[in-house]
């Protein structure tokens, strides 16, 4: 256990004493695991990361690296144990990716900060592991948000620490960059047995890709466990829902908006494969309920032959053939009373 906390309360100094945002936190980060920190805005994700990094005083309790309070560590020794990527937008036209990553070697270089051959090898290796070898000479102001996050992660890798903390690395990233970045984080944790912690808003990706979840429950406590346990215990659906408006669907693992009301008629559905799955989604989205394929007066049958797919809509022995989902929905909507 490299990082542990003991009865940790986090918060900030307010006008009238300390304001605690979460209390009684006891947790640990284990090597070789990717941990995602989830919570609504203002729940204390950044505060927790900054407190764990020793940048902020805890309100009570302590955060410990290798059993010693982070605030008692010599800052240079600590920087060889824990690398931190904060939410800071760096766009320096005179700083290349290589130079940025090289700053990660600061804890190891001599008093002038010059790089030895090993340092340079580490820098190149980190840039390669972060998947951006082609960007090494580019100015940091020319990077996309995703590339910048990878460069910042490479800098953390160059620090050669068993612990890496990242504060919302996926913010402002498009979905593909988010998946790519989290994939790299997971790979690092698994192949180099580092403990990697990242905070995020991305519930679905966190559930899919992290080994461990830390979840602020919105009442000042932090729940921990594997993603699936937290789902089955109902914590996720409780926290990620707005009753009557939208919510986490425990059956599919998605955030879903309920069907528009009033509900339309029940439709029987038969078919298989991805076509069945997406047809079902389309029907639910537009307000139909799904009945067994002969449990309703109205039914949709999906027929596949080779590449072509047909949707056969039948009601009262009338049949219409649709070539795509939009046509199928139109037939259901207008009915057969022409």
């Amino acid at each position, binding site marked *: 256990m490299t990082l542990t906390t003991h009865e940790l309360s986090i918060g900030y100094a307010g006008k009238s004493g300390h304001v605690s945002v979460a209390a009684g936190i006891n947790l640990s980060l284990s090597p070789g695991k990717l941990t995602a920190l989830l919570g609504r805005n203002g729940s204390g994700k950044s505060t927790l990361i*900054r407190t764990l*990094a020793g*940048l902020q005083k805890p309100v009570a309790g302590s955060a410990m690296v290798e059993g010693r309070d982070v605030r008692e560590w010599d*800052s*240079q*020794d*600590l*920087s*060889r144990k*824990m*690398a*931190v990527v*904060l939410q*800071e*937008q*760096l*766009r*320096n*036209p*005179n*700083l*290349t990716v*290589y*130079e*940025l990553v*090289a*700053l*990660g070697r*600061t*804890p190891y*270089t001599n*008093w*002038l*900060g*010059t*790089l030895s051959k090993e340092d*340079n090898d580490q820098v190149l290796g980190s840039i390669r592991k972060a998947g951006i070898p082609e960007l090494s*000479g580019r100015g940091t*102001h020319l990077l996309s948000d995703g590339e910048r996050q990878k460069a910042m992660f490479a800098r953390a890798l160059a*620090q050669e620490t068993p612990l890496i903390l990242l504060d919302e690395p996926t913010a402002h990233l498009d979905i593909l960059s988010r998946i790519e970045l989290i994939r790299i984080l997971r790979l690092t944790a698994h192949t180099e047995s580092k403990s990697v912690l990242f905070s995020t808003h991305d519930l679905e990706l966190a559930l899919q890709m992290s080994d461990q979840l830390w979840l602020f429950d919105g009442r000042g406590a932090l729940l921990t466990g594997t993603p699936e346990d937290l789902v089955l215990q109902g914590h996720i659906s409780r926290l990620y829902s707005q009753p009557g408006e939208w919510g986490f669907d425990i059956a599919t693992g998605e955030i879903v908006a309920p069907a528009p009301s009033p509900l339309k008629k029940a439709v029987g559905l038969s078919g298989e494969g991805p076509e069945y799955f997406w047809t079902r989604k389309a029907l639910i989205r537009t307000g139909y309920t799904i009945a067994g394929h002969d449990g309703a007066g109205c039914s949709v049958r999906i027929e596949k032959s080779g590449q072509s797919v047909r949707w056969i809509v039948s009601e009262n022995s009338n049949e219409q053939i649709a070539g795509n989902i939009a046509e199928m929905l139109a037939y259901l909507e207008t009915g057969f009373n022409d």
Partner: protein
Amino acid sequence: MHSFSSKYLRLSILLPGLLVLLISDILLGSVHIPLRDTLSILTGGESEVKAWSYIIYNIRIPKALTAVLAGAALSVSGLQMQTLFRNPLASPSELGISAGAALGTGFLIFAGGAAGSIVNLHRLGIGTSWLLALSASLGAALVFSVLLVISRFVRDHVVLLIVGLLLGTLTLSLTTIWQYYSKPEQLQAFISWTFGSLGGVSGHQLTVLASVSITGILVSFSLSKTLNALLLGEQNAATLGISIQKARTFILINTCILTGTVTAFCGPIGFIGMAVPHLTRSLLNTSNHLVLLPACCLTGAMLLLACDIIAQLPGSGFVLPINVATSLVGAPIVIWIILKMNNLRNSF
């Protein structure tokens, strides 16, 4: 680093430029001395007119050396401040640090002058020269400390600049109040000091200026690792094992001693501290302080030499105050920086 040695190569191209400007600065002045005689005097030979030799050794060489030292010292101060505040508009003269040094100097002129000892700044003994440098540095440190506190609440570069300008005005008005209670000769000494002058820094003062500038510049080199880490912001630098409190203190002390000493002897010199780091960054296209610091020394020395040459109004026999020349050259550069702010806003 692969691009590292090429940066130093480009840096060394500046050296002949510095030499040319240095010789031109010695060559030009209100008394015309032909190039051949100047060179022969510089190489230890004889000249036609005995006075020329005196002028070159006792006036022009000290003045040129002062320009080199002051230019380098102010530029290094400016670079340190820009990195510490992560603000492209930070510099000793614009953020009121020079005004603080002026307060310290004024304190010595008016308070010390009451005892009748320091009316002529240019005839100081070694002890009083150190005292003057110390007093100006303390004045600078006073303003810098206030600025450091305020900067925690100010995120916007331009707002910090305005706060600095106001602090400078506030400090200068304190000095002005003092002037009411001073004797005419003290007032004259102070006013002529505020115009700024590279001339007349010789003997003991040059010794003090040289030892402080060179020490301060060496200290700044030793801070380059810290300064590089600060490029990522204080919090990130802290996670890289840099002690922020120590970094702030060292940069504060070093900047104040450099600015304070230069200001004490040459008067408040504007724009060099802000403009030179930018010129250097765009010239060498780097943020690495191991390259930037020596480059700022060279560029700063060259720019102040150039300003001194302009101030001579070559061929006219008139001499402008050095502050006028640095404003003429520096203000357009600063305007250019502000126009480029859209790119700069995020670059610190």
